[in-house]
């Protein structure tokens, strides 16, 4: 009896251990019945995007490349999944997604990803074409040591800025006001919005004069009031980020710039007078979107930032709003006016597709990746399959069709039908494409901003995403930036809501210097100089 128990436990333990041990992954290339190479793939896609097996273009591309990919589709919590996956070293053959694997990951996990450079030279005609015609894509793909782990994209149609400013024209008309042209006029207009019943519904207190997107703890992004720095002649990129910008080829940081101080003071003046939404700092993005859609025909927000009118305000009240040209700082300001320049951020992207170094058949995987960069395929990656989503109207001419479902807007249609902006692509400049209506209206609404960018010099645009730092420099800068943002962003909020910037400014600048901002600027400057040399 005793022996039986002992034996039982022993066997149980053995089974337990056997279950724990890892099955050796077979590296034998598998094939389907029709001789296609079986690969595994992972894509981080938008939650709205339909299943990959329903995308006709993808099926064709896989056939053409002679591969059959078993896709894993990730729509949420990628950051958490990624850490475990990379640390375990067990990754799929192909990973697709916007910066799903970052440069920092390549540095942290050397040997996990395949250096694509030699493969591109052999099997990557489309990618080579992209590199030749859009040299920035090559810079974006290449690490500081010359290796290529993740490929970039070129999306071409996107505008110069992601953030436009909108004001409610109907409110202005109701109150007999003009579109403001400088900060002082803006103050007067917002004051009128607040004091009077601008939307004419009988309640003078339900108007929110100004609202902006919630500011994250890691830095600034799109739809945030940092774009107003343009009024002082400063050109920021990507909405501001961690404050680094370029002026006459010199890297600076606006968090310690007097012009930033002016902006914050003036925003505090707005806030102190109740002109900025009280929830601007605590709401999340969906609340920010919801508030601006108003109630029925009743608009709620007077002045705000967004990507496109109908996207920002919904179909009901969008017609009340107009986009307008960047303002000057003051009536007597003589210098240039600028805005957040985001063309590179919107049209290029880093690390859209990677290959595992463990891939059984690298040539096949490369054939597939190369196929994605075929201009016609790329168009389908972006807008959906030829047939339901795109009509081929000529040899090199295409028309993006309206949504089949009449109640759906073109933007949503794109995101549901295909990989959309999340996919790797090369939309060659010689394709003739008739864009969907939402992209056309973005274009129209952008007109006031385009004029501004005509005067902007290349030496004033910080090419943040083009710079590839070494691991050591990256680590050094990250530590400084974490501490720096912790101070700077909370001060930004505090100064706007409670004031006190004049008294605290000098101490604050000193503290930022101590944290190490000057050394970061020095590092970035040296990388920027190298980048310039590379371009020439």
């Amino acid at each position, binding site marked *: 009896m005793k022996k039986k*128990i002992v034996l039982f*436990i022993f066997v149980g333990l053995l089974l337990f251990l056997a279950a724990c041990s890892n099955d050796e992954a077979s590296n034998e290339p598998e094939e389907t019945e029709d001789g296609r190479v079986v690969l595994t793939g992972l894509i981080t896609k938008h939650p709205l995007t339909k299943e990959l097996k329903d995308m006709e273009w993808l099926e064709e591309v896989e056939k053409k490349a002679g591969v059959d990919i078993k896709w894993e589709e990730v729509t949420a919590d990628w*950051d958490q999944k990624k*850490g475990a996956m990379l*640390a375990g070293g067990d990754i799929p053959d192909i990973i697709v997604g916007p910066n799903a694997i970052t440069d*920092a*990951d390549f*540095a*942290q*996990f*050397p*040997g*996990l990803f395949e250096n694509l450079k030699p493969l591109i030279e052999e099997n990557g005609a489309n990618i080579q074409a992209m590199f030749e015609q859009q040299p920035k894509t090559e810079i974006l793909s290449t690490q500081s040591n010359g290796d290529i782990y993740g490929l970039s994209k070129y999306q071409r149609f996107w505008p110069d800025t992601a953030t436009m400013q909108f004001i409610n024209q109907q409110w202005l008309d109701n109150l007999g006001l003009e579109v403001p042209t400088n900060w002082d006029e803006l103050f007067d207009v917002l004051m009128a919005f607040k004091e009077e019943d601008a939307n004419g519904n009988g309640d003078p207190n339900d108007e929110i004069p100004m609202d902006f997107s*919630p*500011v*994250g*703890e*890691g830095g600034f992004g799109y739809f945030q009031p940092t774009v107003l720095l343009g009024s002082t002649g400063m050109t920021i990129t990507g909405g501001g980020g961690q404050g680094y910008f370029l002026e006459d080829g010199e890297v600076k940081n606006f968090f310690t710039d007097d012009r930033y101080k002016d902006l914050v003071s003036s925003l505090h003046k707005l806030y102190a007078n109740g002109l900025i939404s*009280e*929830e601007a*700092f*605590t709401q*999340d993005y969906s609340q920010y979107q919801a508030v601006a859609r108003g109630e029925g025909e009743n608009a709620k927000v007077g002045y705000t930032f967004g990507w496109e009118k109908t996207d920002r305000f919904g179909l009901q009240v969008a017609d009340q709003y107009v986009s307008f040209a960047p303002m000057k700082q003051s009536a007597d300001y003589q210098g240039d006016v600028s805005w957040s320049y985001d063309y590179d951020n919107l049209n290029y992207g880093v690390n859209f597709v990677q290959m595992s170094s463990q891939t059984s058949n690298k040539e096949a995987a490369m054939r597939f990746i190369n196929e994605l960069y075929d201009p016609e395929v790329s168009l389908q990656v972006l807008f959906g399959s030829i047939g339901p989503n795109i009509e081929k109207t000529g040899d090199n001419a295409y028309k993006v069709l309206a949504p089949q479902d009449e109640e759906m807007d073109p933007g949503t249609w794109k995101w549901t039908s295909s990989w959309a902006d999340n996919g790797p692509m090369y939309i060659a400049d010689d394709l003739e494409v008739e864009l969907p209506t939402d992209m056309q209206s973005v274009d129209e609404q952008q007109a006031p901003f385009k004029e501004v960018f005509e005067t902007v010099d290349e030496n004033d645009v910080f090419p943040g995403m083009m710079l590839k730092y070494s691991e050591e420099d990256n*680590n050094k800068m*990250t*530590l400084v930036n*974490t*501490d720096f943002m*912790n*101070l700077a*962003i*909370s001060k*930004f*909020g*505090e100064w706007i*809501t409670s004031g006190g910037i004049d008294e605290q400014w000098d101490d604050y600048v000193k*503290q930022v210097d*101590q*944290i190490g901002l000057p050394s970061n600027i020095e590092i970035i400057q040296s990388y920027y100089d190298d980048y310039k040399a590379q371009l020439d």
Partner: protein
Amino acid sequence: MAFAQATKSKSVSQPKKATILNTFRRDYQLWLMILPAIICVIIFNYIPMYGIQLAFRKYDFTAGLTGGEFVGFQYFIQFFNSHLFWDLIRNTLLISITTIVVGFPAPIALALLVNQIRWKRGKRILQTTVYLPHFISIVVLVGLLNVMLSPNTGVLGLLLAKLGVEGNLLASVNAFIPIYVLSDVWQHVGWNSIIYLAALASVDPQLYDAAKIDGANRWQIIRNVEIPAIIPTIVILLILNMGTVISTGFEKIFLMQNSLNLPISEVIETYVYKTGIMSNQFSYAAAIGLFNTMINFMMLVVVNTIAKKVARISLW
């Protein structure tokens, strides 16, 4: 009687001393039953401890956890020299100590109160109502807080505005700790009181009767019968709580964080997350985490020693 039994059994097993080997042989069934638990603890709690060395090494993926270059206390020194060091310590201590000071006595008071209710049905309804919030997930709870405290649309926000508390509480440095602690108490007070109720249930009814005969009123019964009965439970739980004094609830703080309350809401654990997970500084984050654990461990030892000396109640 008890004495007699003891001597009797002693005389029977006298030749054998209680050595470790003997206890294994004698109680092997018990050991077998506890074996799976021991294996689990070793696998999941002890083996991962070798990861601690990450804090002393420059992490290198190709070389694995144990292969990186040994850098000694470099990461600890880096943390001590960080500009956020004192802020982090202050915020962490402030939040966790307030949580203990306010949050620890609350379930005791509730248990004593509930224990006084004679109407059985009402008692059950009350108990269920107060312990249900325990099952709300933190994400939902923080969502609730956001909705209710919104200055323009929230129920609590509007109510507080009527009472003269102006402004957006979620964005206020001063309101962060009260909101954090009070919502925490609201969520867990019922659940935590269960253990005290159990302790109270084991009080000998004779003690109550004796107290009543002596003419004690309710308050005196609570003071002289019930509180002494649950003191051992209180002390043990207090010691256990002190072991986590510097581990604030990461998820909740992280979710409640926004750019305005950052000066008070950045604690060691959120900082570890930001540097370690978000910026890939594994070694640095491991060092901060280890520092955090060391402080917790020291607190545990100190409080345990004090409790042992003062009340003769202790974990070990």
